[in-house]
């Protein structure tokens, strides 16, 4: 019996399909041991060896990692919410009610999504403060700090665009106030300094572009929905990749 199992496993590990997936042999040899390590995707994302100091909890407080985790949690819960939510002003609010009261675990996912969003703003803040206090933005890491500030901005804009989607009073008026300020942008807003002088009108300024109209309505909802669910997360991923790549390339900032 064990002989048969051995023969089956020998056959499986010798097929082209197995070798295509696992780029190393099956036998326990030093070469295969190295290959299992170096052909593992985890060691593409992490260095095989890490500086001892960088693992100390009291140096990083895990805040950057916690931010990434919350981003992943937000992506997963957000995708689940997207199955039930339709960005139509006539039914968006009812969809949220369904998510909270009818959909299995719907309220849990919505609560986690909201908490993770608030948490992410907080962890980004704390991460930035940690990086500042340890002087980790000093040469050669200046550019990664700039990328970090872009990610902070993206986090805030992501939070704000998500705020409108439940289509309740809270959402509507918060976004009304927020976009009203866009109309006050210097040069590009109709109410802003030098806006009118530069030919800005109610129907061509930055507020109009943001709202897709002169007031918060269906066009605004679909704009915020697409920005929140597709555009901004994609942009954030691009900058995240650069951020992590630079952490690896610029090296760990801690004591030598």
């Amino acid at each position, binding site marked *: 019996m064990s002989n048969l199992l051995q023969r089956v496993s020998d056959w499986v590990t010798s097929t082209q399909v197995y070798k295509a997936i696992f780029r190393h042999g099956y036998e326990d040899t030093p070469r295969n041991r190295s290959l299992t*390590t170096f052909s593992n995707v*985890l060691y593409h994302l*992490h260095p*095989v*060896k*890490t500086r*001892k100091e960088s*693992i100390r909890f009291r140096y990083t407080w*895990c805040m950057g*990692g*916690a931010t990434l985790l*919350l981003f992943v*949690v937000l992506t997963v819960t957000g995708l689940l919410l997207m199955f039930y939510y339709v960005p139509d002003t006539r039914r968006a*609010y009812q969809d*949220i009610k369904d998510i909270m009261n009818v959909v299995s675990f719907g*309220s*849990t996912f919505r*609560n*986690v*999504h909201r*908490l993770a969003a*608030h*948490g992410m*703003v907080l962890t980004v803040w704390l991460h930035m*403060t940690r990086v*500042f*206090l*340890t*002087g*980790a*933005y*000093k040469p050669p890491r*200046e550019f990664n*700090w*700039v990328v970090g*500030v872009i990610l*902070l*901005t993206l986090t*805030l804009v992501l*939070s*704000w665009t998500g*705020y409108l989607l439940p*289509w*309740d*009073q*809270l*959402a*509507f008026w*918060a976004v009304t106030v*927020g976009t009203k*300020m866009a109309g*006050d*942008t*210097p040069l590009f*807003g109709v*109410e*802003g300094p*030098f806006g009118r*002088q530069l030919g800005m009108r109610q129907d061509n300024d930055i507020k109009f572009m943001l709202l897709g109209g002169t007031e918060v309505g269906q066009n605004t909802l679909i704009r915020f929905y697409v920005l929140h669910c597709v555009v901004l997360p994609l942009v954030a991923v691009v900058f995240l990749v650069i951020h992590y790549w630079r952490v690896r390339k610029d090296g760990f900032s*801690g004591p030598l």
Partner: protein
Amino acid sequence: MADKSFEIFPKNSNKTYGLMELVKGTAPATEKEPEDTIFSWPHLFYVELIAVLVVTAALLFLSLYVGAPLEEEVGRDTTPNPMKAPWYFLGLQELLVFFDPWIAGVTLPALIIIGLMLIPFLDTNPKGSGSYTFSERKLAVSVYAFGLGLWTALIVIGVWFRGLDWSWYWPWNDLHVHKPPIVGLKDLSVIFATKLGISEFLGNTLSYLLVLVYFAVGLIIPVFIFKRFYNRLGIIRYVTTMVLFLIMAGIPVKIALRLIFSIKYVMVTPWFKI
């Protein structure tokens, strides 16, 4: 490393290669002491796994007790009072009390983002990289703490001390009773004109001058007091740093002017007011 090596083969001058030394060790490492690094697996991955578990568990437990709010459906005929943005934007909303929307809602956030991005290029102090230190970079840490403190204070006020009509409410005040609106706010130019008995035009000019003096003094005086600081930064870095700092410091100054002297605007132009 060197003391552990020993000569096995004498060097042969006829060969272009040779065995240099034998070193005891378990890991391949070049130009590095082996003690410096540890394997990511398991040391780093365990830390990450624990962090992931802790954060996920905290999220799930919190989500049982802190529900996401859902108010009534959108209706244009009812406006909530007070209308509060999420907490991380309440600093900006609080600034709306003291500044016009084009400053509080657009220009200041933009300046905060640009200023943050510029930090590594303005801070020329090479010390204090890679450890928590205050003594090696007193100025940088103080300025950051000032900015963060100001921001946090504005958020705390917005979250816990603002009620109906965005009036100030102490925790023991009744949140359902309106407070009398603040009246009697005057522009600085009008105060100058009435107090000094000069024309409105002169009062206006005087207020422009005062803003100019604030920035001029703030830019010029430190050049003479902190000569070394100025020399190290150079003119471009120095001016950028100081202008950003003076704008940041100007926020509590303007807030104080409003609260103590009931001044609405310190500077009025036909196009914008500050």
